């Protein structure tokens, strides 16, 4: 299926906060309470529409376990967007956000759009982190913020799509150099500005990919 842009996302955060479940809810619209621990990285992809344009999200779901950190870091490179996830029922996952954020900023490009997500909003009775705290952290560090529930699907679509909107706006403003793939953005096969000057078998197919 053709698309105007492809955005690479990463999902990061402590182990057990629901990163893989958020991805599964977004790509497959289902919730799986028991899930294999992510080791290394897993993938998901979905097509969305922004401003009438088809945009393919290629999402890299990384392992949260600290023992795997030094390898998962290398996946941050070339991401246009990041979902930084904590669990509203576990304060320590919120306390670790600063480390995650430093890590992400250090190993990715400076324009990367970061969405802070407080997941498991369905577990209101077990809440340990107030919504206001999440908002304050986001404000302080220049992030977008949302509370989601991968279980009930509340705000899951919005989290992924709003991040894409922000990236899209940055492209319109010229902040992202879309010809540099290190920014995590690829132009779709038919939308390549250089396409017309190239033979049919040229860069179109390689840029289009067919990944994930």
């Amino acid at each position, binding site marked *: 299926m053709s698309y105007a842009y492809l955005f690479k996302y990463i999902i990061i955060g402590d182990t057990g906060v629901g990163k893989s479940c958020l991805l599964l809810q977004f790509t497959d619209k289902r919730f799986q309470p028991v899930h294999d621990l992510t080791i290394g990285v897993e*993938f998901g992809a979905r097509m969305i529409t922004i401003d009438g344009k088809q945009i393919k999200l290629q999402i890299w779901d990384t392992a949260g376990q600290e023992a795997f950190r030094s*390898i998962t870091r290398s996946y941050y490179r070339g991401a246009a967007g990041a979902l930084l996830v904590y669990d509203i029922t576990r304060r320590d996952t919120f306390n670790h956000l600063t480390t995650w954020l430093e890590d992400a900023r250090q190993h990715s490009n400076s324009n990367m759009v970061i969405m802070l997500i407080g997941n498991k909003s369905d577990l209101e009775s077990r809440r340990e982190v107030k919504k206001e705290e999440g908002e304050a952290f986001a404000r302080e560090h220049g992030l977008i913020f949302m509370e989601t529930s991968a279980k009930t699907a509340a705000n899951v679509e919005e989290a992924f799509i709003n991040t894409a909107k922000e990236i899209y706006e940055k492209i319109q403003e010229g902040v992202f150099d879309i010809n540099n793939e290190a920014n995590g953005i690829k132009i779709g096969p038919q939308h390549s500005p250089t396409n017309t000057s190239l033979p049919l078998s040229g860069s179109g197919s390689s840029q289009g990919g067919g990944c*994930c």
Partner: protein
Amino acid sequence: MSDLATPLLYIWDGDTMKAFWTFVQIMKLLKKNFEMSQNTISFQLQMLYKLIQITDSKFAEYLKENDSHNCYFAFRWIICLFKREFMKGKTDDYDDCLTVWESVWCINSFDNIEPESETATTNERVRKNIEKSNCSSPNHEEYGRPSTPKKLSNVELYLLSLSLAIIRKERDLILSKKFDACEILKHFNTLHLKENLNELLLNASQIWHWLKFDGGEEKLYTDESEKKSITTEEDFEILNNDCIKSDISTSRDVSFEWSDVCSSNFVFN
């Protein structure tokens, strides 16, 4: 680590005490893979790339061009001893995974029964033991800072052999479909290998044999710059043929079916 523990609970039919002590034994072998520095696992992945370079330089080049020469796609294979690749879906069918594991334990026991030449002097034996304890002793580094490993243990070599067997099976598809970095990672990440169990184990044992007894292992530790550079597919096949042939001619009393290796497993036609 739960990936390593669940099959054990299955073997012991839920007897947690027996499963625990079996788990302790497994972790003696594998705990370095879980070091925070990740030096050990990174070294294994580096060596895997070198192994690909030695046996299939065309594919090695392709991986490099596509930013996949870190071999991170093999990370989970090694960490979980291929458990996820040999399980089908969400079922509790551990049999194939356990067959793979059984082969790993065999290699581990090889450490203990490795025959020593009768003519070896005491000095040589002492030296060998020191070397052994330097590279594969589970107690080494117990209290110190983890150091960068320089040599692979037999189990690690075998895990790389099985990784290479899987890679060789998939390489044609990857080359023909021109997968990019993400697609390569995704492809290797989502393999289900149950149907190919026997073939892969056979190939892995052949590769391991080549590494251990026919000079393959030494090639891993030699400097890359000494290697021939290959430019065409034809060169690649010639070199691959030469490489295997010379290994056969120099091999000692190995009762191994090298004809199988040459005809089907090591050379791409």
